[in-house]
């Protein structure tokens, strides 16, 4: 049995207390939310630190999905399963249903959180790709107050984020806009595996033409990759297989995958294109069906 190195354990009762503990313990401390990324690393002794601050009691404060007219706000402690079971969230963004069905397994989804997923900043992380696709912004809180950063600013490289040692990610904001839909596809070697490549797309129509489109790719770069050029290509045009194939080609050439056990660089580039094409088409089909 794998056993972690020795550490002290503290349990925060609310956000202020968590920040207080972080300020006091600094970089020698680590937060644990669902623990499904952190605990495996601790057991392998890849993550070693002196203090573990458990923030699961913050679920009351930070476990929420609130729908307003212009945005959906999701608390950082909201669990995968709660995302999957939120009818208003899935109605606005079907991409969450697609993605959550292919993230790990029910055991992991019962505990893992949105905040933990984003803060883990794994290049293959699925919810980061979803948030990139949806142009999410992240609310970070420290003792000095809150700041809001975009997804592009939030991720600073593999396993690195904009959250400081004495700060907490508390909320994700997703802008709402009418006339759109979204979708997610993932290629994995086996159920519950991390993505070989996965891709989210969101698209909004204005009559017969595309008003806006966004793509978020996981596992093909140091962080989730949004490809703004795809939006530029698609805006103002009528959707077609040909057009989405072009968008796919853009995705293939704009990402930076590497060869590893999950696949060759060439294959991953191919998938980036293929999944971009598929998810964009699904968005259009969903808009037509009104979902």
């Amino acid at each position, binding site marked *: *049995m*794998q*056993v972690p190195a020795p550490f002290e354990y503290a349990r925060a009762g609310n956000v202020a207390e968590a920040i207080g503990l972080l300020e006091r313990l600094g970089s020698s401390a680590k937060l644990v939310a669902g623990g499904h990324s952190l605990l495996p690393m601790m057991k392998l002794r890849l993550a070693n630190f002196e203090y573990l601050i458990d923030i699961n009691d913050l679920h009351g404060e930070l476990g929420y999905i609130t729908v307003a007219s212009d945005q959906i706000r999701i608390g950082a402690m909201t669990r995968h399963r709660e995302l999957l079971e939120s009818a208003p969230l899935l109605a606005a963004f079907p991409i969450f249903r697609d993605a959550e069905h292919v993230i790990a397994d029910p055991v992991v989804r019962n505990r893992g959180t949105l905040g933990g997923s984003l803060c883990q900043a794994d290049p293959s992380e699925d919810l980061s790709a979803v948030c990139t696709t949806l142009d999410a912004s992240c609310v970070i809180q420290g003792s000095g107050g809150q700041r809001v950063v975009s997804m592009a600013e939030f991720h600073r490289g593999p396993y690195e984020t904009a959250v400081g040692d004495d700060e907490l990610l508390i909320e994700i904001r997703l802008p709402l806009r009418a006339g759109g839909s979204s979708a997610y596809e993932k290629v994995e*070697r*086996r*159920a519950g595996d991390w993505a070989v490549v996965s891709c989210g797309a969101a698209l909004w129509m204005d009559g017969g033409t595309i008003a806006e489109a966004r793509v978020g790719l996981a596992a093909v770069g140091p962080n989730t990759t949004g490809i703004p050029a795809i939006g530029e290509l698609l805006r103002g045009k009528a959707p077609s297989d040909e057009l989405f194939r072009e968008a796919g080609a853009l995705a293939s050439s704009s990402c930076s995958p590497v060869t590893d056990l999950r*696949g*060759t660089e060439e294959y991953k580039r191919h998938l980036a294109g293929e999944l971009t094409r598929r998810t964009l088409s699904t968005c259009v089909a969903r808009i037509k069906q009104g979902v």
Partner: protein
Amino acid sequence: MTAVEDRPAGFVDNDQKPVGYGRMLRKEDPRFIRGMGRYVDDINLPGMLHLAILRSPVAHARIISIDTRAAEAHPKVKAVVTGAILAEKGLAWMPTLSNDVQAVLATDKVRFQGQEVAFVVAEDRYAARDALELIEVEYDILDPVMDVRKALEPGAPLIRDDLEGKKDNHCFDWETGDAAATEAVFAKADVVVSEDIVYPRVHPAPMETCGCVADFERVEGKLTLWTTSQAPHAHRTVYALVSGLPEHKIRVIAPDIGGGFGNKVPIYPGYVCAIVASLVIGKPVKWTEDRSENLVSTGFARDYIMRGEIAATKDGKILAIRTNVLADHGAFNGTAAPIKYPAGFFGVFTGSYDLEAAYCKMTAVYTNKAPGGVAYACSFRITEAVYLVERIVDCLAYQLDMDPAELRLKNFIQPDQFPYTSKTGWVYDSGDYEPAMRLAMDMIGYDELRKEQAEKRAKGELMGIGISFFTEAVGAGPRKDMDILGLGMADGSELRIHPTGKAVLRVSCMSQGQGHETTYAQIVAEEIGIPPADIQVVNGDTDNTPFGLGTYGSRSTPVSGAAAALVARKVRDKAQIIASGMLEVSVADLEWDKGSFHVKGDPSKSVTIQAIAMRAHGAGDLPEGIEGGLEAQICYNPSNLTYPFGAYICVVDVDPGTAQVKVRRFVAVDDCGTRINPMIIEGQVHGGLTDGVGMALMEMISFDEDGNCLSGSLMDYLIPTALEVPEWETGYTVTPSPHHPIGAKGVGESATVGSPPCVVNAVMDALKPFKVRHADMPLTPSRVWEAMQGRTRPPI
């Protein structure tokens, strides 16, 4: 007999259980289902200490120094032991099952990443693990040999400089068949097809990792070892030979095992370390390996690079098969196989076909990888052999543009040819291949599937139909030419009937989930008519079971199962004599009527086996010369192996855009001779098929150039889940073994052996429009896509 397996409705009710063969629930399941199984890690003894092993972070390096002072200073640490300390006691090296030696703890060099370098014994397992980090080892890094193809190149780094006079990484050469005769047949053949076929290194990955509790009791001078062992008796003898402890002072107990698959056949350094620790400290010591340790250091399987060649006439008569194999044995040759069979039973690579000639040449080499080459449900390398022949036959079908089913049907060994001596000298006991093949084709609707495939191909969809037909050689084996480290591969069995007619059967084989407690009770029930529920089956304790070599290579039913039937017959013979006294007739005047003897021609005059048991133990006279009691013991030495076979057909769909493979259907027709408990057989088949899909599509132990093992967790070493496999469809034919007392053949590994080529053949069939003839396992989406691009040897 040929039939599709029926699914009887009432079998879940054990009150209707058979007195003998038939479906019944497994007697052992209530304890597993309720979490009441007792595994090695559940054993906790008073005062028990915990052992953890420091492993090499690199694949090849000379050890310059080891500083254990800081670890020794840890307040909870009792001992820190290095190879140098073991060497003083002559225990730094131990024999492997293939007559090589393996380091218990490295003294001179480390030879693979994960090799044992030192161990710590501490009060709890956390402290033991913490103290490992306090040990400082200085290494002089050497170039590793990771590419088996380069292991024999001049100037390759020498791995085994511990072996006197060793100058290269050569491990052994082996050949079988007739090279000249085979060459002559190849020279005259219309068609010759050759293909390089790799069976990658895979791992058994049992859910329960390896471990033990060693308890040396100083007053008695007796060592009790609870251990994860598929072969407790063989292990006891080896410990006696290595440690110098007398064999009667060693008791090996294998409690419930959470999966073996060959992983628990070898003796690992961890066991020896725990024994040494207990001997020295005088307290019980537990060692439990973690998941990564299991994956990186314990017995792997396969790792054969095979060049297959097949010669045929242009109308598809197969004439000869030839193969050249490069075998990667890792740093120490730890293969578990009968000693005269360094390549196991790979010689059955001629498959189920009647050939004119065959030849195999094998070169085995050392590399800087973990040792083992054990099993993983391989029936001693038959997995590799069957993969080779079934793949190369499909390559021939591709070349001839012939239906692979038709090609196989045309070349089968015919029923009247049995017993059939293959061109590599194996004597197939019995077989009737065509009915099994036809049944599988009927069950899956072969002709309709081919039509569907043609329609789909026209639309650009990728659908494949794969076939494999395998023959195994299991039940090792005849002691005249099969032994492991000098121990003959026979198995003992002891049966005692208690006064009230209940019984206990003690066997030398060792269940790892195969359902022995049920199957053996049913075998005895069939012979003496005592219900299975009344028969306790005991295994896994060397003080309480007769000697035998354990469970692997599908040998339990062929060997121990035979022993169980024969010992029951011996008891029945004695019961008959006692019955003759009770009924006052001569022995010859009695007839057996499952469960009782009656007087011939007068069924009303009868005695039950239970009544006989009471008489055997009770008061009153017994017939002249008969001792009291009703029990017997035998040792069964098989006269030949048994040769189970099967026809597997599966259907896959490949996504043309993402190259993902979905196994849509899988029909498995197995012939394992007499069927004892069909439910248990199906369970074995289901498990093996799942294994096979895993190996075909996702499993591989891989390394980088520096020698790092990249598959040290179950996130990296993938094993399939229920979502990757279809609902299995099983069928059967019954061709009894002529020499086995009840006609049974082994079935434990059939499906693992037969399914990988079936799945790979299906994927290759799907990729036919891309003119792909072969691509290597595991067929991950990336590899399938690369094959579609014409690159069948992708870099990963």
